[in-house]
Protein backbone atom coordinates (compact mmCIF):
# COMPACT_ATOMS: atom_id res chain seq x y z
CA UNK A 1 0.00 0.00 0.00
CA UNK A 2 2.71 2.45 0.96
CA UNK A 3 4.99 2.13 -2.02
CA UNK A 4 2.70 3.48 -4.78
CA UNK A 5 1.76 6.40 -2.56
CA UNK A 6 5.38 7.24 -1.86
CA UNK A 7 6.22 7.05 -5.56
CA UNK A 8 3.31 9.31 -6.39
CA UNK A 9 4.61 11.82 -3.88
CA UNK A 10 8.10 11.65 -5.33
CA UNK A 11 6.66 12.43 -8.75
CA UNK A 12 4.79 15.40 -7.37
CA UNK A 13 7.96 16.69 -5.75
CA UNK A 14 9.88 16.41 -9.03
CA UNK A 15 7.22 18.36 -10.87
CA UNK A 16 7.18 20.94 -8.12
CA UNK A 17 10.95 21.18 -7.99
CA UNK A 18 11.26 21.75 -11.72
CA UNK A 19 8.46 24.30 -11.68
CA UNK A 20 9.74 26.47 -8.88
CA UNK A 21 13.17 27.23 -7.59
CA UNK A 22 12.41 27.97 -3.98
CA UNK A 23 10.13 26.66 -1.27
CA UNK A 24 6.54 27.56 -1.99
CA UNK A 25 4.61 29.41 0.66
CA UNK A 26 1.52 31.57 0.65
CA UNK A 27 2.00 35.08 -0.66
CA UNK A 28 3.10 37.59 1.97
CA UNK A 29 0.40 39.59 3.65
CA UNK A 30 -0.53 42.58 1.54
CA UNK A 31 -2.81 45.56 1.91
CA UNK A 32 -5.62 43.66 0.25
CA UNK A 33 -5.51 40.84 2.82
CA UNK A 34 -8.75 40.14 4.67
CA UNK A 35 -9.07 41.75 8.09
CA UNK A 36 -7.11 39.85 10.72
CA UNK A 37 -8.55 38.46 13.93
CA UNK A 38 -7.61 40.36 17.12
CA UNK A 39 -3.87 40.56 16.65
CA UNK A 40 -1.81 39.33 19.58
CA UNK A 41 0.55 41.55 21.52
CA UNK A 42 3.69 39.75 20.32
CA UNK A 43 5.17 40.15 16.87
CA UNK A 44 6.23 37.46 14.43
CA UNK A 45 9.71 36.90 13.12
CA UNK A 46 9.99 36.76 9.31
CA UNK A 47 8.91 33.33 8.05
CA UNK A 48 11.82 33.16 5.61
CA UNK A 49 14.24 32.83 8.53
CA UNK A 50 12.33 29.92 10.04
CA UNK A 51 13.04 27.25 7.43
CA UNK A 52 9.48 26.94 6.06
CA UNK A 53 8.46 23.51 4.72
CA UNK A 54 8.32 23.25 0.94
CA UNK A 55 4.98 22.12 -0.45
CA UNK A 56 4.75 18.64 -1.93
CA UNK A 57 6.99 16.68 0.42
CA UNK A 58 5.73 13.71 2.37
CA UNK A 59 4.91 13.99 6.08
CA UNK A 60 7.08 11.43 7.85
CA UNK A 61 4.59 11.22 10.74
CA UNK A 62 1.95 10.16 8.19
CA UNK A 63 3.67 8.10 5.48
CA UNK A 64 1.89 8.58 2.16
CA UNK A 65 0.42 11.95 3.14
CA UNK A 66 1.70 14.92 1.14
CA UNK A 67 2.20 18.21 2.94
CA UNK A 68 0.18 21.08 1.58
CA UNK A 69 -0.13 24.56 3.08
CA UNK A 70 -3.19 25.00 5.32
CA UNK A 71 -5.65 27.54 3.97
CA UNK A 72 -5.88 29.66 7.12
CA UNK A 73 -9.35 31.17 7.53
CA UNK A 74 -9.99 34.80 8.43
CA UNK A 75 -13.10 36.61 9.58
CA UNK A 76 -14.86 38.42 6.77
CA UNK A 77 -18.44 39.12 5.80
CA UNK A 78 -18.82 35.80 3.99
CA UNK A 79 -17.47 33.82 6.98
CA UNK A 80 -19.83 35.56 9.36
CA UNK A 81 -22.85 35.04 7.13
CA UNK A 82 -21.95 31.38 6.70
CA UNK A 83 -21.55 30.86 10.46
CA UNK A 84 -24.85 32.49 11.32
CA UNK A 85 -26.62 30.62 8.51
CA UNK A 86 -25.17 27.29 9.59
CA UNK A 87 -26.20 27.94 13.21
CA UNK A 88 -29.78 28.52 12.09
CA UNK A 89 -29.72 25.31 10.05
CA UNK A 90 -28.38 23.28 12.98
CA UNK A 91 -30.90 24.69 15.43
CA UNK A 92 -33.78 24.16 13.01
CA UNK A 93 -32.78 20.53 12.51
CA UNK A 94 -32.21 20.00 16.24
CA UNK A 95 -35.45 21.61 17.50
CA UNK A 96 -37.82 18.94 16.19
CA UNK A 97 -38.81 16.88 19.24
CA UNK A 98 -41.82 15.31 17.54
CA UNK A 99 -39.88 13.69 14.69
CA UNK A 100 -38.93 10.02 14.66
CA UNK A 101 -35.26 9.55 15.56
CA UNK A 102 -34.14 8.37 12.12
CA UNK A 103 -35.58 11.41 10.33
CA UNK A 104 -34.35 13.81 12.99
CA UNK A 105 -30.81 12.43 12.89
CA UNK A 106 -30.64 12.23 9.10
CA UNK A 107 -31.12 16.00 8.89
CA UNK A 108 -28.90 16.96 11.85
CA UNK A 109 -25.89 14.65 11.47
CA UNK A 110 -24.45 16.17 8.25
CA UNK A 111 -24.30 19.57 9.94
CA UNK A 112 -22.11 18.34 12.83
CA UNK A 113 -18.40 17.61 13.28
CA UNK A 114 -17.24 14.02 13.60
CA UNK A 115 -16.93 14.36 17.38
CA UNK A 116 -20.36 16.00 17.69
CA UNK A 117 -21.86 13.21 15.58
CA UNK A 118 -20.61 10.74 18.17
CA UNK A 119 -21.90 12.89 21.01
CA UNK A 120 -25.36 13.76 19.69
CA UNK A 121 -26.28 10.47 18.00
CA UNK A 122 -27.55 9.16 21.34
CA UNK A 123 -30.05 11.98 21.90
CA UNK A 124 -33.68 10.86 21.96
CA UNK A 125 -35.48 13.74 20.19
CA UNK A 126 -38.44 13.15 22.51
CA UNK A 127 -36.27 14.64 25.30
CA UNK A 128 -35.51 17.86 23.41
CA UNK A 129 -37.10 20.87 25.13
CA UNK A 130 -36.80 23.37 22.26
CA UNK A 131 -39.15 23.41 19.27
CA UNK A 132 -38.78 26.75 17.49
CA UNK A 133 -36.34 29.50 16.60
CA UNK A 134 -37.76 32.87 17.58
CA UNK A 135 -35.18 35.27 16.15
CA UNK A 136 -32.02 35.71 14.13
CA UNK A 137 -28.84 33.98 15.38
CA UNK A 138 -26.08 36.35 16.54
CA UNK A 139 -22.34 35.74 16.25
CA UNK A 140 -20.95 36.59 19.70
CA UNK A 141 -17.31 35.46 19.68
CA UNK A 142 -14.70 35.87 16.95
CA UNK A 143 -11.65 35.06 19.09
CA UNK A 144 -10.45 32.52 16.53
CA UNK A 145 -11.29 32.37 12.84
CA UNK A 146 -11.54 28.56 13.21
CA UNK A 147 -14.32 28.89 15.82
CA UNK A 148 -17.67 30.64 15.98
CA UNK A 149 -19.93 31.03 19.00
CA UNK A 150 -23.45 31.86 17.92
CA UNK A 151 -26.45 32.65 20.12
CA UNK A 152 -29.78 31.42 18.83
CA UNK A 153 -33.05 32.72 20.32
CA UNK A 154 -35.66 29.97 20.81
CA UNK A 155 -38.99 29.33 22.48
CA UNK A 156 -37.20 28.15 25.66
CA UNK A 157 -34.48 30.80 25.77
CA UNK A 158 -31.16 31.52 24.07
CA UNK A 159 -29.09 28.52 22.95
CA UNK A 160 -25.35 28.84 22.39
CA UNK A 161 -23.85 26.93 19.48
CA UNK A 162 -20.15 26.34 18.98
CA UNK A 163 -19.14 25.88 15.34
CA UNK A 164 -15.73 25.03 13.91
CA UNK A 165 -14.04 24.87 10.53
CA UNK A 166 -10.78 23.13 9.70
CA UNK A 167 -9.59 25.60 7.04
CA UNK A 168 -10.72 28.50 4.90
CA UNK A 169 -12.43 26.23 2.36
CA UNK A 170 -14.19 23.90 4.81
CA UNK A 171 -17.81 24.47 5.84
CA UNK A 172 -18.76 25.41 9.38
CA UNK A 173 -19.89 22.39 11.41
CA UNK A 174 -21.54 22.16 14.81
CA UNK A 175 -19.51 21.12 17.87
CA UNK A 176 -22.01 21.71 20.68
CA UNK A 177 -25.61 22.85 21.18
CA UNK A 178 -25.86 24.26 24.69
CA UNK A 179 -29.28 25.04 26.17
CA UNK A 180 -30.02 28.09 28.34
CA UNK A 181 -29.31 27.66 32.07
CA UNK A 182 -31.97 25.57 33.77
CA UNK A 183 -33.03 23.80 30.57
CA UNK A 184 -31.83 20.22 30.09
Amino acid at each position, binding site marked *: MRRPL*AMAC*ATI*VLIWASGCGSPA*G*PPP*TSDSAPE*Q*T*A*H*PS*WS*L*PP*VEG*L*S*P*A*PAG*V*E*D*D*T*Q*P*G*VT*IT*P*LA*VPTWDAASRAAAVGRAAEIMTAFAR*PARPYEDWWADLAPLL*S*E*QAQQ*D*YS*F*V*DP*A*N*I*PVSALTGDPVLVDE*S*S*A*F*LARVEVPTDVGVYEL*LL*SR*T*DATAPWVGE*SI*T*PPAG*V*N
Partner: protein
Amino acid sequence: MDRKTTTGLLVLVLPLSLIGLVFGMLLFGSTSSAACGPSTSASVTIDLATVPDGPIAGFSGDQLINAAYIITAGHDLALSERDQTIGVMTAIGESSLLVLDYGDAAGPDSRGLFQQRDNGAWGSYADRMDPYISATNFFRVLATVENRDSLSPTQVAHRVQRNANPNHYAPYWDAAVQIVTALGTLEGTGARPVSAVSCDPLIPGTLSASGWSRPADGPITSPYGMRVDPVTGSFTLMHIGTDLNAGGCGGPIWAIQDGHVSRIWADSYGGWTVQVDHNGGVLSEYKHSYRSDILVRIGEPVTAGQQIARTGNSGWSTGCHLHFAVLIDGVNVSPELFMQSVGVEL
Protein backbone atom coordinates in the same frame (compact mmCIF):
# COMPACT_ATOMS: atom_id res chain seq x y z
CA MET B 1 20.48 33.32 19.70
CA ASP B 2 22.17 33.37 16.32
CA ARG B 3 21.97 30.80 13.56
CA LYS B 4 25.43 29.36 14.28
CA THR B 5 24.33 28.19 17.71
CA THR B 6 21.28 26.59 16.23
CA THR B 7 23.22 24.66 13.64
CA GLY B 8 25.53 23.34 16.32
CA LEU B 9 22.59 22.25 18.39
CA LEU B 10 21.02 20.37 15.49
CA VAL B 11 24.23 18.52 14.71
CA LEU B 12 24.58 17.45 18.33
CA VAL B 13 20.98 16.40 18.63
CA LEU B 14 20.76 14.15 15.59
CA PRO B 15 22.70 11.17 17.02
CA LEU B 16 20.93 11.62 20.34
CA SER B 17 17.62 11.36 18.58
CA LEU B 18 18.49 7.95 17.17
CA ILE B 19 19.52 6.71 20.60
CA GLY B 20 16.35 8.20 22.04
CA LEU B 21 14.19 6.38 19.53
CA VAL B 22 15.80 3.03 20.27
CA PHE B 23 15.48 3.50 24.00
CA GLY B 24 11.91 4.66 23.54
CA MET B 25 11.08 1.45 21.72
CA LEU B 26 12.67 -0.64 24.44
CA LEU B 27 11.23 1.15 27.42
CA PHE B 28 7.70 2.03 26.45
CA GLY B 29 4.89 -0.19 25.37
CA SER B 30 1.70 1.19 23.92
CA THR B 31 -0.10 1.48 27.23
CA SER B 32 -1.84 4.69 28.12
CA SER B 33 -0.73 6.73 31.09
CA ALA B 34 -1.83 5.79 34.59
CA ALA B 35 -5.58 6.10 34.91
CA CYS B 36 -6.68 9.08 36.91
CA GLY B 37 -9.95 9.14 38.82
CA PRO B 38 -12.27 6.52 40.28
CA SER B 39 -11.35 2.85 39.87
CA THR B 40 -12.61 1.08 36.76
CA SER B 41 -12.19 -2.34 38.39
CA ALA B 42 -12.99 -2.26 42.12
CA SER B 43 -16.51 -1.65 43.39
CA VAL B 44 -17.45 0.53 46.33
CA THR B 45 -19.43 -0.88 49.27
CA ILE B 46 -21.41 1.20 51.69
CA ASP B 47 -23.06 0.80 55.08
CA LEU B 48 -26.51 2.34 54.74
CA ALA B 49 -26.78 2.66 58.54
CA THR B 50 -23.80 4.98 58.89
CA VAL B 51 -24.35 7.52 56.14
CA PRO B 52 -23.29 10.91 57.52
CA ASP B 53 -25.66 13.87 57.62
CA GLY B 54 -23.22 15.99 55.64
CA PRO B 55 -22.98 18.37 54.08
CA ILE B 56 -20.68 16.77 51.51
CA ALA B 57 -20.16 18.85 48.37
CA GLY B 58 -23.27 20.80 49.38
CA PHE B 59 -25.49 17.72 49.77
CA SER B 60 -26.90 16.43 53.08
CA GLY B 61 -29.55 14.29 54.78
CA ASP B 62 -31.87 12.47 52.37
CA GLN B 63 -29.71 13.47 49.44
CA LEU B 64 -26.78 11.47 50.83
CA ILE B 65 -29.06 8.55 51.75
CA ASN B 66 -30.22 8.52 48.12
CA ALA B 67 -26.61 8.63 46.93
CA ALA B 68 -25.95 5.63 49.21
CA TYR B 69 -28.81 3.70 47.56
CA ILE B 70 -27.35 4.50 44.14
CA ILE B 71 -23.88 3.32 45.18
CA THR B 72 -25.39 0.15 46.66
CA ALA B 73 -27.43 -0.59 43.52
CA GLY B 74 -24.24 -0.28 41.45
CA HIS B 75 -22.34 -2.54 43.81
CA ASP B 76 -25.08 -5.18 43.69
CA LEU B 77 -24.61 -5.31 39.90
CA ALA B 78 -20.83 -5.68 40.41
CA LEU B 79 -20.15 -2.34 38.71
CA SER B 80 -16.97 -0.33 39.26
CA GLU B 81 -16.40 2.73 41.40
CA ARG B 82 -16.33 4.80 38.21
CA ASP B 83 -19.72 3.46 37.11
CA GLN B 84 -21.14 4.05 40.58
CA THR B 85 -19.84 7.61 40.57
CA ILE B 86 -21.42 8.18 37.14
CA GLY B 87 -24.74 7.07 38.70
CA VAL B 88 -24.43 9.63 41.49
CA MET B 89 -23.39 12.34 38.99
CA THR B 90 -26.42 11.59 36.82
CA ALA B 91 -28.85 11.83 39.73
CA ILE B 92 -27.29 15.14 40.80
CA GLY B 93 -27.81 16.46 37.27
CA GLU B 94 -31.38 15.17 37.06
CA SER B 95 -32.80 15.74 40.54
CA SER B 96 -30.12 17.12 42.90
CA LEU B 97 -30.37 13.67 44.56
CA LEU B 98 -34.04 14.17 45.49
CA VAL B 99 -36.85 11.73 44.61
CA LEU B 100 -38.84 14.22 42.56
CA ASP B 101 -42.54 13.56 42.06
CA TYR B 102 -42.65 15.88 39.07
CA GLY B 103 -41.02 16.23 35.65
CA ASP B 104 -40.02 19.14 33.41
CA ALA B 105 -41.11 20.85 30.18
CA ALA B 106 -39.46 18.33 27.85
CA GLY B 107 -40.63 15.39 29.98
CA PRO B 108 -43.63 16.18 32.17
CA ASP B 109 -43.90 12.44 32.91
CA SER B 110 -40.31 12.23 34.27
CA ARG B 111 -40.04 11.02 37.86
CA GLY B 112 -37.58 10.22 40.60
CA LEU B 113 -33.83 10.52 41.15
CA PHE B 114 -33.03 9.88 37.48
CA GLN B 115 -36.10 11.63 36.02
CA GLN B 116 -37.05 8.43 34.22
CA ARG B 117 -39.95 8.78 31.81
CA ASP B 118 -43.20 6.85 31.64
CA ASN B 119 -42.30 5.21 28.33
CA GLY B 120 -42.06 1.61 29.47
CA ALA B 121 -38.27 1.55 29.56
CA TRP B 122 -37.93 2.38 33.24
CA GLY B 123 -40.64 0.37 34.97
CA SER B 124 -43.74 1.41 36.90
CA TYR B 125 -44.33 4.71 38.66
CA ALA B 126 -43.40 3.00 41.93
CA ASP B 127 -40.17 1.69 40.39
CA ARG B 128 -39.19 5.14 39.11
CA MET B 129 -39.89 6.67 42.53
CA ASP B 130 -37.83 4.05 44.40
CA PRO B 131 -34.17 5.13 44.84
CA TYR B 132 -32.73 1.60 44.76
CA ILE B 133 -34.93 0.23 41.95
CA SER B 134 -34.58 3.33 39.75
CA ALA B 135 -30.81 3.25 40.21
CA THR B 136 -30.75 -0.47 39.37
CA ASN B 137 -32.65 0.20 36.14
CA PHE B 138 -30.26 3.04 35.31
CA PHE B 139 -27.23 0.82 35.88
CA ARG B 140 -28.66 -2.10 33.86
CA VAL B 141 -28.64 0.15 30.80
CA LEU B 142 -25.27 1.70 31.72
CA ALA B 143 -23.73 -1.79 31.79
CA THR B 144 -24.56 -2.13 28.07
CA VAL B 145 -22.66 1.03 27.04
CA GLU B 146 -19.67 -0.22 25.05
CA ASN B 147 -16.14 0.98 25.86
CA ARG B 148 -17.58 3.19 28.55
CA ASP B 149 -14.31 3.48 30.47
CA SER B 150 -12.84 5.34 27.50
CA LEU B 151 -15.77 7.78 27.32
CA SER B 152 -16.07 10.83 29.53
CA PRO B 153 -18.48 10.40 32.48
CA THR B 154 -21.06 12.77 30.99
CA GLN B 155 -20.98 10.85 27.69
CA VAL B 156 -21.70 7.59 29.52
CA ALA B 157 -24.55 9.14 31.52
CA HIS B 158 -25.98 10.69 28.36
CA ARG B 159 -25.97 7.39 26.48
CA VAL B 160 -28.17 5.93 29.22
CA GLN B 161 -30.42 8.95 29.68
CA ARG B 162 -30.56 10.01 26.02
CA ASN B 163 -31.20 13.59 27.18
CA ALA B 164 -30.91 16.57 24.83
CA ASN B 165 -27.48 17.79 25.99
CA PRO B 166 -24.60 15.25 26.08
CA ASN B 167 -22.50 17.65 28.19
CA HIS B 168 -25.19 18.28 30.80
CA TYR B 169 -23.71 16.14 33.57
CA ALA B 170 -20.08 17.30 33.40
CA PRO B 171 -20.43 20.06 36.04
CA TYR B 172 -21.61 17.47 38.62
CA TRP B 173 -18.71 15.01 38.33
CA ASP B 174 -16.50 16.55 41.03
CA ALA B 175 -19.33 16.56 43.58
CA ALA B 176 -20.15 12.92 42.75
CA VAL B 177 -16.50 11.92 43.27
CA GLN B 178 -16.48 13.68 46.63
CA ILE B 179 -19.69 11.94 47.74
CA VAL B 180 -18.60 8.44 46.71
CA THR B 181 -15.21 8.99 48.29
CA ALA B 182 -16.76 10.15 51.56
CA LEU B 183 -19.48 7.49 51.84
CA GLY B 184 -17.93 4.26 50.65
CA THR B 185 -15.03 1.88 51.02
CA LEU B 186 -13.34 -0.01 48.22
CA GLU B 187 -14.32 -3.66 48.25
CA GLY B 188 -11.58 -6.02 49.32
CA THR B 189 -9.36 -3.41 50.96
CA GLY B 190 -11.85 -1.74 53.27
CA ALA B 191 -10.04 1.48 52.42
CA ARG B 192 -11.67 4.74 51.43
CA PRO B 193 -11.48 5.31 47.69
CA VAL B 194 -8.66 7.79 47.40
CA SER B 195 -8.88 8.37 43.67
CA ALA B 196 -10.11 11.93 44.01
CA VAL B 197 -7.17 12.86 46.19
CA SER B 198 -4.45 10.96 44.36
CA CYS B 199 -5.52 12.17 40.91
CA ASP B 200 -2.33 13.56 39.38
CA PRO B 201 -2.55 17.34 39.40
CA LEU B 202 -1.93 19.38 36.30
CA ILE B 203 1.58 20.79 36.05
CA PRO B 204 1.97 24.34 34.77
CA GLY B 205 4.81 25.14 32.37
CA THR B 206 7.47 27.73 33.06
CA LEU B 207 7.15 30.95 31.09
CA SER B 208 10.06 32.72 29.44
CA ALA B 209 10.68 36.41 30.06
CA SER B 210 8.68 37.13 26.91
CA GLY B 211 5.73 35.06 28.16
CA TRP B 212 6.14 31.89 26.07
CA SER B 213 6.25 28.33 27.34
CA ARG B 214 8.13 25.30 26.09
CA PRO B 215 5.60 22.80 24.65
CA ALA B 216 7.17 20.06 26.80
CA ASP B 217 10.41 19.04 28.42
CA GLY B 218 13.29 17.94 26.21
CA PRO B 219 15.53 16.62 25.05
CA ILE B 220 14.82 16.83 21.34
CA THR B 221 14.69 13.27 20.04
CA SER B 222 14.20 14.16 16.37
CA PRO B 223 14.60 17.66 14.91
CA TYR B 224 12.61 19.44 12.22
CA GLY B 225 13.80 18.99 8.65
CA MET B 226 14.11 16.89 5.51
CA ARG B 227 14.70 13.16 5.75
CA VAL B 228 16.27 10.68 3.42
CA ASP B 229 13.73 7.96 2.66
CA PRO B 230 15.36 4.82 4.09
CA VAL B 231 14.07 2.76 1.15
CA THR B 232 14.37 4.96 -1.94
CA GLY B 233 17.16 7.23 -0.71
CA SER B 234 15.29 10.25 -2.05
CA PHE B 235 14.73 13.52 -0.20
CA THR B 236 10.95 13.36 -0.30
CA LEU B 237 10.19 12.84 3.38
CA MET B 238 10.05 15.69 5.81
CA HIS B 239 9.74 15.83 9.56
CA ILE B 240 7.44 18.84 9.82
CA GLY B 241 7.76 19.15 13.58
CA THR B 242 10.18 18.63 16.43
CA ASP B 243 10.04 15.47 18.54
CA LEU B 244 10.56 15.95 22.25
CA ASN B 245 10.95 13.33 24.96
CA ALA B 246 8.27 15.34 26.80
CA GLY B 247 8.67 13.58 30.13
CA GLY B 248 7.94 10.17 28.60
CA CYS B 249 4.53 8.50 28.83
CA GLY B 250 2.12 10.71 30.77
CA GLY B 251 4.45 13.73 30.88
CA PRO B 252 2.94 17.22 30.68
CA ILE B 253 2.36 19.06 27.39
CA TRP B 254 1.91 22.83 27.57
CA ALA B 255 0.32 25.45 25.31
CA ILE B 256 3.18 27.64 24.12
CA GLN B 257 1.09 30.82 24.19
CA ASP B 258 -2.44 32.06 24.84
CA GLY B 259 -4.97 30.94 22.26
CA HIS B 260 -8.00 28.80 21.56
CA VAL B 261 -8.19 25.06 20.92
CA SER B 262 -9.15 25.17 17.25
CA ARG B 263 -9.09 21.47 16.36
CA ILE B 264 -8.67 18.02 17.95
CA TRP B 265 -8.37 15.14 15.51
CA ALA B 266 -6.84 11.78 14.75
CA ASP B 267 -4.54 11.90 11.71
CA SER B 268 -4.61 9.21 9.02
CA TYR B 269 -2.61 6.87 11.30
CA GLY B 270 -4.65 7.54 14.43
CA GLY B 271 -2.23 10.09 15.85
CA TRP B 272 -4.31 12.36 18.07
CA THR B 273 -3.43 16.00 17.54
CA VAL B 274 -4.40 19.18 19.38
CA GLN B 275 -4.22 22.42 17.41
CA VAL B 276 -4.13 25.80 19.16
CA ASP B 277 -4.86 29.03 17.28
CA HIS B 278 -2.73 31.85 18.69
CA ASN B 279 -4.13 34.38 16.20
CA GLY B 280 -1.97 36.51 13.94
CA GLY B 281 -1.59 33.50 11.63
CA VAL B 282 0.24 31.33 14.20
CA LEU B 283 -0.91 27.78 14.98
CA SER B 284 0.77 25.23 17.25
CA GLU B 285 0.10 21.48 17.03
CA TYR B 286 0.78 18.75 19.60
CA LYS B 287 0.64 15.13 18.38
CA HIS B 288 0.64 11.54 19.73
CA SER B 289 -1.32 11.86 22.99
CA TYR B 290 -3.97 9.23 23.62
CA ARG B 291 -7.48 10.63 23.19
CA SER B 292 -8.26 10.23 26.89
CA ASP B 293 -5.11 12.19 27.78
CA ILE B 294 -6.18 15.31 25.90
CA LEU B 295 -7.27 17.64 28.68
CA VAL B 296 -8.94 20.42 26.69
CA ARG B 297 -12.00 20.68 24.49
CA ILE B 298 -12.43 22.31 21.13
CA GLY B 299 -13.23 26.01 21.47
CA GLU B 300 -11.67 26.26 24.92
CA PRO B 301 -9.39 29.23 25.61
CA VAL B 302 -5.92 28.24 26.84
CA THR B 303 -3.11 30.28 28.37
CA ALA B 304 0.66 30.11 27.87
CA GLY B 305 2.04 27.26 29.97
CA GLN B 306 -1.35 25.62 30.60
CA GLN B 307 -1.12 21.83 30.57
CA ILE B 308 -3.32 20.69 27.69
CA ALA B 309 -2.43 16.99 27.35
CA ARG B 310 -0.26 14.11 28.54
CA THR B 311 2.46 12.60 26.39
CA GLY B 312 1.43 9.43 24.58
CA ASN B 313 2.11 7.06 21.70
CA SER B 314 -0.91 7.21 19.38
CA GLY B 315 -0.46 7.08 15.60
CA TRP B 316 2.77 6.58 13.60
CA SER B 317 5.04 6.44 16.63
CA THR B 318 7.35 3.93 18.28
CA GLY B 319 7.31 5.25 21.83
CA CYS B 320 5.77 7.98 23.95
CA HIS B 321 6.88 11.41 22.74
CA LEU B 322 5.53 14.78 21.61
CA HIS B 323 5.60 15.77 17.95
CA PHE B 324 5.36 19.56 18.15
CA ALA B 325 4.67 21.67 15.06
CA VAL B 326 4.30 25.39 14.38
CA LEU B 327 2.49 26.83 11.36
CA ILE B 328 2.73 30.43 10.21
CA ASP B 329 0.12 31.52 7.69
CA GLY B 330 -0.59 27.84 7.06
CA VAL B 331 3.01 26.76 6.40
CA ASN B 332 5.03 24.55 8.74
CA VAL B 333 8.15 26.26 10.05
CA SER B 334 10.98 25.04 12.23
CA PRO B 335 9.66 24.86 15.82
CA GLU B 336 13.24 25.08 17.08
CA LEU B 337 13.90 28.35 15.23
CA PHE B 338 10.46 29.75 15.98
CA MET B 339 10.69 29.08 19.71
CA GLN B 340 14.23 30.46 19.73
CA SER B 341 12.93 33.67 18.15
CA VAL B 342 10.59 34.13 21.12
CA GLY B 343 13.27 33.34 23.66
CA VAL B 344 12.64 29.64 24.34
CA GLU B 345 15.17 26.85 23.73
CA LEU B 346 13.56 23.50 22.96
